[in-house]
């Protein structure tokens, strides 16, 4: 279970990106995080694996305090959290297979990375993950030769390589067209339901939230403004979250 307690992040310029945010995510839940751009969604997800250092508050994963972990412990914690990004964040010039294998870096011995060597069973595993997301035939192409949807699948395969207990997805479909968006979301849903992986996913479109999420939290200017079921977001709640002038699309 993930517990976030009074999480606050103030950036160097004094911007309060998160303001005493608290919530809980039980194991196996698909939690959607919604809110306007700049409302703190990305910061929240990045605080959980400490790509962004929280200013105050606690994050507990199965009782273990992530915010107090030493760098060595953090390495062991991060490798259990897969992360999927809006802009895929693949290494463009490297082959797809190497990008997927990078998901294993938290497990392999750093000394062997110098020689660019992965154990044989990791390579097999990487091929299985690529098959699972349906692009095994692209394994030896350069990552930047793939289309956007294919690149995001590589991103998911990379996260799966970590044998994740939780996946943090930062607007995974915001740069994709609606058809591709659904196919990517279906992969995440499948991982959530078949493997029992907890998923935290920030999303823009409410129809995706209704379709895929078990639970929703909403952020507005760093504060938690809604926590509940997707179906309970009515017009009034919508205006609370997105502001009075917002209109529903999609």
């Amino acid at each position: 279970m993930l517990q976030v307690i009074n999480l606050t992040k103030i950036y160097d310029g004094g911007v309060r990106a998160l303001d005493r945010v608290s919530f809980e995510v039980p194991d196996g839940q698909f939690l959607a995080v919604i809110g306007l751009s700049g409302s703190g969604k990305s910061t929240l997800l990045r605080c959980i694996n400490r790509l962004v250092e929280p200013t105050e508050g606690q994050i507990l994963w199965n009782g273990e305090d992530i915010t107090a972990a030493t760098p060595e412990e953090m390495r062991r914690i991060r490798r259990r959290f897969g992360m999927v990004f809006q802009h895929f964040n693949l290494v463009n010039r490297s082959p797809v297979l190497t990008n997927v294998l990078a998901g294993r870096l938290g497990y392999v011995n750093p000394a062997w990375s110098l020689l660019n060597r992965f154990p044989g069973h990791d390579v097999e595993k990487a091929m299985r993950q690529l098959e699972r997301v349906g692009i095994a035939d692209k394994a030896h192409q350069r990552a930047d030769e793939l289309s956007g949807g294919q690149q995001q699948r590589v991103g998911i395969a990379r996260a799966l390589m970590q044998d994740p207990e939780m996946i943090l997805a930062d607007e995974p479909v915001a740069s994709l067209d609606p058809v591709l968006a659904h196919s990517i979301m279906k992969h995440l849903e499948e991982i959530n339901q078949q493997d029992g992986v907890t998923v935290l996913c920030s999303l823009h479109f409410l129809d995706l939230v209704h379709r895929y999420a078990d639970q929703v939290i909403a952020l507005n200017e760093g504060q938690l403004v809604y926590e509940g079921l997707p179906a309970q977001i009515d017009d009034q709640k919508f205006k609370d979250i997105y502001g009075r002038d917002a209109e529903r699309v999609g």
Partner: protein
Amino acid sequence: MKANKTSIWKSVKAGLGTVLVLVVFAYGFQITKVNLTELRSEQRQVSLQRVIRALARPDIFAYQQEELVSNTPIYLPCPGPDLLAALPAPDTSGPFLVISPACAEPGDTVEVRGFNFYPNAEGPLRFIPGPDPVSPVALGNVIAATDGEGQFTASLTLPERPSSEVQHVRATIRRNIGLPQLTETAHSTWEKIVETVFLALLATTIGTILAIPLSFVAARNLMVGVRSPLASISLSILGWPIGVLLGYLAVDAMARLSAPLASSIPTNLAAIVIAPFVIWLAMRWALPQEELVAPRPLVRLARGLVLILSVLVGLFGLFQLAALAMNLGSRLDDALGNFGFLGGFLFQVGEILRITTPALGALAAGATVGSMLGRIGQRAAERMSARWVRLLNFLLAPAAGATVLGLLGLLVEVLYQVGRPVYTLWIPVLVGSAVGLALAAFTRPKDTLPTGLVIYSITRTILNATRSVEALVMAIVFVIAVGIGPFAGVLALGLHTIVSLAKLYSEQVESILPGPMEAVEATGANRLQTIIYAVVPQIIPPYISYTMYRWDINVRMSTIIGFVGGGGIGFLLQQNINLLNYRAAAAQMLAIAVVVAAMDYVSSVLRQKVV
């Protein structure tokens, strides 16, 4: 009204600006002594013409020549009639001259007719002062050209060299034999231009290899995140000198162990086969490819010991490898004849390995011990309570500060030979401890300090300072260190290449996409892994392109590095310019132009292919 005002003000400003620019240029003219009157002087123009004509005819091809010489006596001024009558009649079987009149006053012009020379050839007609007909001293330079029958007629103005003895007029008519051939200059130019190209190649190679690690340290985006607590920094600083010392001792011990076994090639071979095998086994055991749980401390200790042992074995193997290269090299040098340079190369490589291993080994050991102690410090700062960490800081930080400044003091002592330990040892040590104490007192014990930024700034400063010293100046220093020759040039250009490439490279590292780094970091990769998997693939193309460009620069630089004795073609060029031998200089300039143009073409083709 207001608009009008501004426009007037604007015109005044523009006017003032123009005047200022004119004044600046006028001053510039004066400073740089622009002087066109000098250019118009006839003497200058004649010299200029001569130089330009010489430059236009590079000394590359020349005909072999044969010559016919006739030395004919002449009196200057006319002596008594008996002496004049005693002059022998010309030997008409070979080339001969008829001078009319047979004697004259200095400054008179006489007519010289030549017979029996090569037809349609030419050569100088000169006055030989003194009684010796074959004296090398000759005056005047009239060109005599023969007709189809090998005869010529020329007028020679006699110089102011009156003498009672007989003097001579010499005609030397030359003709070409066979086809034009490469001159001596062309041969030496070829030799030196090859030296130049390889000088640039070696300098670029050395520079690139050393610039790559430096460029990571000089990249802000990689270093800004590196922060460590004071205890960790202090321990790391203390660890470096200890590590360097231990490393040097270990390497030295292995060198001694290896020395008695070094001379036999079978032993060398056995050692370099067994050593890698042992290391491979040790690595297999001590560095498991995947670890799901953290190992126990005892296991870690055992692994560390095994790794240290395998490093010692590796060092032994390296020394044996060096010995093997040197043994084989010196044998091949004798055996291969014309290709002996391959043996020589092998020998030198062995020697380089033998010389650099202690230095590199000591540095590597310093880095290892430094980072290990740093980690222990980090762990201590994380695990212990704030009060204990503060105590630790109070103990360690002064010691670290004293070490740093003490070593700097030692450097000052070596450089300036102050000879007074108060200034070079005690005061630095005291100041260092004071700074350490202050740091320990004024920082919160568990706070992390921006180590990365400090290292970044120091590296940048050193790079910029070194880069501002021209390679030519560096060459002067290296000529003193290793003697005149291309090796000094290689070292000078190599050093300049390191610092300038490190800067260019680091700017490429700073401009990579941060996304992949973030993603790789999120998988639990450590810094080293992040650099290898997210940074390196992004910087390969610009690195290749900058390396090519630098090679290009080095070829150009190596053409002038010889001016100060750094080897390469510059040596010849300078020599010939100083000897006013402009045709030879022209040959060398032509060679430089050809090589630079070819390099430019090759590097652009390669860049297109690779990048």
